[in-house]
């Protein structure tokens, strides 16, 4: 009975509203993914291959102003209880209400607007098989949290755009020495809102050039009785700047970030985690499209690139924690990216993974393919 009524209602809606609905509603499917092969130097390290990411992009516009966007991701191909690394996760899922070019209201599981890779992470958009180490250990990509905010571009000549969100905070319990704040992310799963946090980004763009500045500020105590129950207890302050510049066949990008973990001493005492009180570093990358010289008429790209990363998740440590020199990392990556189209990429690179402590250093050869559509 209920379904019959539902059908009747549905038919009535369709017949009366068909014109408007059809003219405005639209569902879009897309996706991206990457397959990676890595072979590290050293004894007993055979090559390994994985379907690192397989992502389905699903979007729907309800009318001219209201739209939904989401990414559903499978990492490492397979997910099973007690199995290996695989994860199934929603990477973003949010609603946008577009009021004007300068104001879109946004709510849901949103990407934190810091650095380059976190928001623009489709494999053909960056050089190198794996994302930079910096974008794992310092900026914890893919970083997403639940919240509300606003975004927009300022039309005309200014070239400025912004995003500001109020989201759930990080959890100090997950912090660690090597991966910093990474496991403090809540990623939209039953997240505690004990420490509402602010994050935002300002961008300035010109043809070939984009400059960005980002911040995050918020507590991480999660109402823990030892760390504090205040909104901004155990505060995390992050600032980051990035630049991308393309000129002729050359392209450059750089990112720097500084993360201050004010109560690192208390956090380390509470959880025994040895997280640093300051995490800092960045990378610079230069690439050159060889096809510009070899085949000037071609729209394909074959870029040779070099990237140098320097970052330290123990840039400063609280009293009672011994500074670990092996966390001051220096990664140099040489590689090639072949892009037959702008949205497909075949990659190969060689990485020298070093650290100031000289402990556990290695080199790794990686091959990969990536796509987006």
């Amino acid at each position, binding site marked *: 009975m209920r379904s019959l009524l539902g059908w009747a209602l549905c038919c009535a809606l369709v017949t009366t509203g068909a*014109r408007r609905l*059809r003219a405005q509603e639209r569902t879009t499917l897309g996706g991206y993914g990457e397959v990676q092969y890595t072979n590290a130097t050293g004894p007993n390290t055979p090559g390994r291959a994985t379907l690192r990411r397989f992502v389905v992009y699903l979007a729907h*516009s309800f009318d*001219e102003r209201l739209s939904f966007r989401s990414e559903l991701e499978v990492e490492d191909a397979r997910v099973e209880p007690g199995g290996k690394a695989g994860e199934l996760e929603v990477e973003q899922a949010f609603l946008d209400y577009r009021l004007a070019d300068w104001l879109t209201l946004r709510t849901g599981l949103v990407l934190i607007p810091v650095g380059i890779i976190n928001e623009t992470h489709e494999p053909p958009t960056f050089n190198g098989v794996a994302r930079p180490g910096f974008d794992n250990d310092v900026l914890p990509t893919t970083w997403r949290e639940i919240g509300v905010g606003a975004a927009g571009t300022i039309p*005309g000549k200014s070239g400025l755009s912004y995003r500001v969100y109020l989201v759930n905070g990080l959890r100090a319990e997950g912090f660690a020495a090597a991966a910093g704040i990474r496991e403090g992310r809540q990623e939209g799963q039953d997240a505690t809102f004990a420490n509402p946090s602010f994050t935002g980004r300002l961008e300035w763009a010109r043809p070939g*050039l984009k400059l960005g500045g980002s911040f995050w500020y918020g507590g991480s105590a999660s109402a823990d009785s030892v760390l504090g129950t205040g909104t901004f207890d155990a505060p995390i302050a992050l600032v980051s700047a990035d630049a991308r510049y393309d000129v002729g066949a050359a392209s450059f990008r750089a990112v720097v970030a500084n993360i201050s973990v004010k109560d690192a001493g208390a956090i380390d005492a509470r959880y025994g985690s040895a997280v640093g009180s300051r995490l800092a570093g960045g990378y610079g990358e230069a690439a050159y499209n060889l096809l510009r010289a070899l085949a000037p008429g071609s729209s394909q790209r074959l870029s040779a690139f070099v990237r140098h990363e320097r970052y330290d998740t123990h840039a400063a440590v609280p009293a009672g924690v011994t500074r670990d020199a092996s966390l001051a990392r220096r990664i140099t990556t040489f590689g090639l990216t072949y892009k037959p189209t702008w949205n497909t990429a075949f990659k190969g690179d060689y990485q020298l993974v070093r650290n100031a402590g000289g402990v556990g250093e290695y080199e790794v050869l990686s091959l990969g393919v990536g796509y987006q559509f």
Partner: protein
Amino acid sequence: MSVGLALLLLATQQPAAPPARLAASLARIFGSGVRADTIHVDTTTVLRVSRGDSLLGFAAVGNVIGKDQPITFLVAVDRDDRLKDVDILVYREPYGGEVAYEPWRRQFRGARASDSLRVGKEIRSISGATISVHAVTLGVRRLLAGLTAWHASGAIR
């Protein structure tokens, strides 16, 4: 498929720009107080822009799909088929709105249908707006070719 449904589907593929936005764009490009007459060519609506007895040029509104949303844009040419300007009338995506910035759109000015307009060559891209840059560049190329061909054939004059 009924004709009505076909028209409906056609309408679905052609989101419109608010009339005020379109009028403001024409005034910006051709000057205020111009007259715009509508000419239908194939499935495209072309605006013939004039002041008094003199023809100033033509304009057409097109749509291209960005990542998932239509981008409604305008291409204006002078009476010698040279591109006067491009305007982004409605941008609906969360990322990539930089295509509306004047320094990016400026790159198309003065182009002819016979000119090459390729992303990464004549048209510089913007990081983080790659999809929109490719979509709008392709759309501009098509509309510019259309306007030039229709002008040459006398379909618009």
